[in-house]
């Protein structure tokens, strides 16, 4: 029996998986188990598959993914905290043939940037929003976010989030889905291969919608934050499935390829 040399296996025709060229070789600063890495990867794959590297502008937020521009080989603008949708609005309106997306966390999008995201979506800006919701402020050290679940302990809700003190968790995605300017709203996750495939499909649709000029596409990725949650990566995924998915159920909230105005007419009837 002939021995199989490794160099005989590494051949183009045997390739079943490759790292997309849109991802750089920079080592990611994300913690083990963090959902950002996978989410970055599928955004990068979508950009490569659609062949839009030279036409894509990413807008990174303030938060853990502030350095997203180190990992995706496209042009980037780095926004002030919460303002990514404002940057994206102007960029898309001034360069309507480009693909523009914001990549934002829950503190950035749902707290300080609540006005910007609501108004950009309400205007129906033809942009794609990637909203990574891990229910915590990761970068600043695990403080309470608007999406933090009730009872969840964080650095600024050390005894668990309670309504009387902190108010309710904010279902911003459900709010966004109400807006007539929005074409597509979905909630996905990336903790299993199947979930990753579904999330990627959703992101791809979000980018494709830009070419159709039918309004904003909003993709929430329910995510983990092992460091902030103080759980192992495996336990984080389990905790997310058990607790996060109950309050933030996965699936499409809105998928309309019709013109926004028709949607609005329905809305006022």
């Amino acid at each position, binding site marked *: 029996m002939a021995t199989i040399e490794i160099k005989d296996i590494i051949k183009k025709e045997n390739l079943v998986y490759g790292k997309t060229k849109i991802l750089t070789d920079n080592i990611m600063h994300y913690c083990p188990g963090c959902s950002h890495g996978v989410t970055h990867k599928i955004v990068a794959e979508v950009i490569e598959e659609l062949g839009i*590297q*030279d*036409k*894509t*502008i990413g*807008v990174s937020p303030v938060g853990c993914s*502030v*350095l997203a*521009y180190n990992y995706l*080989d*496209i*042009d*980037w*603008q*780095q*926004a*002030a905290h919460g*303002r990514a949708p*404002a*940057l*994206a*609005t*102007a*960029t898309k*309106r*001034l*360069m309507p043939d*480009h693909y523009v997306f914001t990549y934002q966390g829950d503190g950035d999008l749902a707290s300080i940037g609540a*006005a*910007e995201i*609501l*108004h950009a979506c309400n205007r129906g800006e033809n942009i794609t929003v990637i909203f990574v919701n891990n229910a915590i402020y990761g970068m600043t050290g695990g403080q309470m976010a608007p999406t933090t679940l009730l009872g969840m302990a964080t650095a600024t809700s050390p005894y668990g989030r309670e309504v009387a003190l902190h108010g309710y968790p904010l279902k911003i995605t459900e709010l966004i889905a109400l807006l007539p300017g929005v074409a597509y709203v979905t909630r996905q996750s990336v903790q299993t291969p199947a979930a990753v495939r579904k999330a990627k499909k959703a992101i791809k649709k979000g980018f494709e919608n830009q070419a159709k000029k039918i309004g904003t596409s909003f993709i929430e990725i329910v995510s983990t934050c092992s460091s902030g949650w103080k759980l192992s990566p495996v336990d984080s995924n389990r905790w997310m499935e058990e607790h996060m998915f109950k309050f933030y159920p996965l699936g499409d909230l809105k998928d309309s390829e019709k013109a926004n105005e028709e949607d609005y007419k329905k809305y006022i009837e």
Partner: protein
Amino acid sequence: MGELKLMKGNEVIAEAAIRCGCDGYFGYPITPQSEIMETLMLEKPWETTGMVVLQAESEVASINMLYGGASCGKKVMTSSSSPGISLMLEGISYLAGAELPCLIVNVVRGGPGLGTIQPSQADYFQTTKGGGHGDYQVIALAPASVQEMNDFVGLGFDLAFKYRIPSLILTDGVIGQMMEKVIVADHKPRWTDAEIQKISGTWATTGKTKNRERHVVTSLNLESEKQEIHNHHLQAKYREIEVNEVRFEEFQTKDAEYLFVAYGSSARICQKSVELARAKGIKVGLLRPITVWPYPTVRIAELATKVKGMLAVEMSAGQMVYDVRLAVNGKIPVSHFGRYGGVIPSPGEVLEAMEKFIKGGK
């Protein structure tokens, strides 16, 4: 060349923006400058030049739209009045940090707080001494006529792109609400993609092509040593601007024994006070800074060796007077006269203040 019109200062800002090939205006209504966006919306430049005009949800959003638009190498602008500019300061600091060219118009009103909607010059510190966080400057042009409101839109963009810096037109409700004759420039087309590549192709986010590295517009630097190097670079640029871009105007300074120092609408009032003083045989002149940053420090220092005293006249409790004092450096007496909170001084009371100053200065 150009076209003669009778227009309000605010309206001409809009007209000049369209005519100079501005790509985008992003703003939020606030008195006394709402005519700027109103005029743009009425003119519908998106149908003629392709200029984008958008009413944003807030001043915070407007200034960040500028950040996005400027990142693409586009000529973008906003306008507001004092409270709105306060909201924009974070964004202006980011624009300065990321070295983005843009134009901001501040039609100043009386403060602090919600204050009044009447004219004021109390945003001088905010404009020239930073305002937002970090060591930064913006080029600040102070028009004293409707014609200059028109001219400084084009000039503001030119300087912004020459130095990759935000330019700011510092004006107030007197100039903004006043109508005067103005010659508006002929239409200049907006920059083509090729022109943008030529002007800003080394840094603008226009899409990463095969033949270049990706462009990242950011003001973030996690390493303090690198951030210090970036600051050195910014400071060197500011020194260069201080050498090259100081603009001022002198009025009857040749034989003047005393000098008014005033910018914008106050300078117009002082000019009348000079006429009144001269009629009474008092030898008074006026130095009008046109750029309030960079400031005409060198010229004021020269004049300090020729005149007996300087009176800074501002619609504030005394802000620009600090820059006059710094320039004069104790050589001659310097004083301040101001009305504020939205009150405009009359040429008569400005003259009285000068007469009082002369008596005390002797």
